[in-house]
């Protein structure tokens, strides 16, 4: 945890847990600076499932990396419980856009990497790792190497690795982006189940409108690059959500709202 000076809590009176204030990011590239994020202010409440939705290249990954303390914002600040983040946050679980598994470690070994980093007691951690792998349908695959697993399985291993130390916050960058629709549905259900039990704060980056509506308490819709906060949408569907709920008019209305927004911004075009 990084505890330093406190931020003046002028925005987000409702006690945001994770708070981004006026975050901008400019990348220096060969052909001039690229503005990836512009003045993004957003707060996630404790235990909230917040999704970040936006077109490709709008700065979602950048936003997540900044929230994780892995990238420094060009201006603005990130704070956790009022403490400004200045170093990589180690108290979180993070799932990248690709699984990022170590090829020379088995599925179990990859999950245990987190336990080694946190110096958790070995036997207990191992038991928990096995339980987690079992919970996402990977029992029997503990001793397989990443190259022996399917893409979906690999991403599930990386999800377990992000959960084994029971973090208060989960940051996920399009974790299911590269998967087929069926695997994706299953993992979304698995994730909902895990979140329902533990209620950690989740920052979930996605391209998929239905996925965001299905999982989230709130959705932060971003504009095309440079990414700015376009609209915050509260999703007031009952929980736990079921696959059948995707056919309801309420669900469809949320999708419609977001698609209309994208149409208005020129992200989508109906010729």
């Amino acid at each position, binding site marked *: 945890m990084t505890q330093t000076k406190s931020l003046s809590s002028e925005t987000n009176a409702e006690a945001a847990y994770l708070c981004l204030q006026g975050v901008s990011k400019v990348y220096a590239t060969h052909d001039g600076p690229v503005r990836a994020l512009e003045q993004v202010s957003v707060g996630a409440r404790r235990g909230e499932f917040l999704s970040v939705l936006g077109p490709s290249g709008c700065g979602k990954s950048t936003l997540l990396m900044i929230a994780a303390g892995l990238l420094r914002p060009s201006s603005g600040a990130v704070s956790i419980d009022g403490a400004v983040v200045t170093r990589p*946050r180690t108290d979180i679980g993070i799932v*990248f856009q690709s699984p990022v598994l170590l*090829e020379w470690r088995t599925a179990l070994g990859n999950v245990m990497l987190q336990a080694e980093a946190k110096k958790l007691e070995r036997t207990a951690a191992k038991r928990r790792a096995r339980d987690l792998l079992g919970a996402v349908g990977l029992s029997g695959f503990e001793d397989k190497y990443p190259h022996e697993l399917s893409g979906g399985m690999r991403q599930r291993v990386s999800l377990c690795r992000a959960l084994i130390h029971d973090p208060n916050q989960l940051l996920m960058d399009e974790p299911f982006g590269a998967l087929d629709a069926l695997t994706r549905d299953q993992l979304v259900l698995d994730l909902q189940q895990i979140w329902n039990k533990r209620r950690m704060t989740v920052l979930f980056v996605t391209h998929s409108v239905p996925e965001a509506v299905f999982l989230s308490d709130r959705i932060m819709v971003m504009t095309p690059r440079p990414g700015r906060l376009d609209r915050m949408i509260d999703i007031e569907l009952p929980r736990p959500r079921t696959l059948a709920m995707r056919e309801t008019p309420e669900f469809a209305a949320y999708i419609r709202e977001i698609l209309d927004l994208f149409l208005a911004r020129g992200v989508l075009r109906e010729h």
Partner: protein
Amino acid sequence: MAEAERSLPRSPAVAVAESEASAERSRARRAWRARIRNVLYPVGVVLGVLVIWEAGTRLLEVPAFLLPPPSAVAVSFIANAPLLLFHGWITTAEILLGFALSIVVGIPLALAIFLWPTFSRSVLPLLVSSQAMPKVAVAPLFLVWFGFGLLPKVLIAFLIAFFPVVISTAVGLASIEPEKIYLARSMGFGATATFFKFRLPNALPSIFGGLKISITLAVVGAVVGEFVGGDAGLGYLLMVANGSMDTRLLFAGIVALTVLGVVLFLLVELAERLAIPRHIIAGDRGVHETA
């Protein structure tokens, strides 16, 4: 899998188990055939070359001092076995010492190159030009400096063999996905742990690729050293055999050197097998993956 068996009514579960078993059997059979092929084909080629060689030298009545038939080489090899063994040991010692020195110097050097860009910028040009320079040319100088013993040969072997170790280690250390480093940081690993848990294992396939090149070059280096000035070793024996027109012994010496080179290479490969899981051994990735 007879026709009669196939027509029998079976429960689906049995059918699945059976096709599983048959898949396993055919996999085992294929693996076995591949293994036989891997041994049989090269051995066949070598035997074929030997037969043509033997027949050719006999039919064309090539004088033995020009090109002895393989059978004569074999006879000479057996007759001179103690001599070959004695000189072989000395050459082996030179090669291994030169190779060990390549590792002891090459890996820390690569580490320094990787860790300090300034060091890399100042040292790399020198390193590259040391490779452009023909090592055979400095061999006589080494003799002047270090006498006729083991040392100059070890140093020449080292000079030729260490470069691939440096380059492959430096490339291996640098070629890691940035996400892995981000992951290490967000999990809270420090610099040392990140090195040993992420970078080094990630670099191992590439490092071993370099070591395999290095060991074959160390053989060349030791023999070059012995050619230029020595009183022992297989290279020296080759010079002596050449001087006395004993072409059979010359060939026997070449065979001994070849066997030595292959055995040492296989030992490095064995170390590689022990050090890293089979599926990430260079070939899929590693040497071919540059930063």
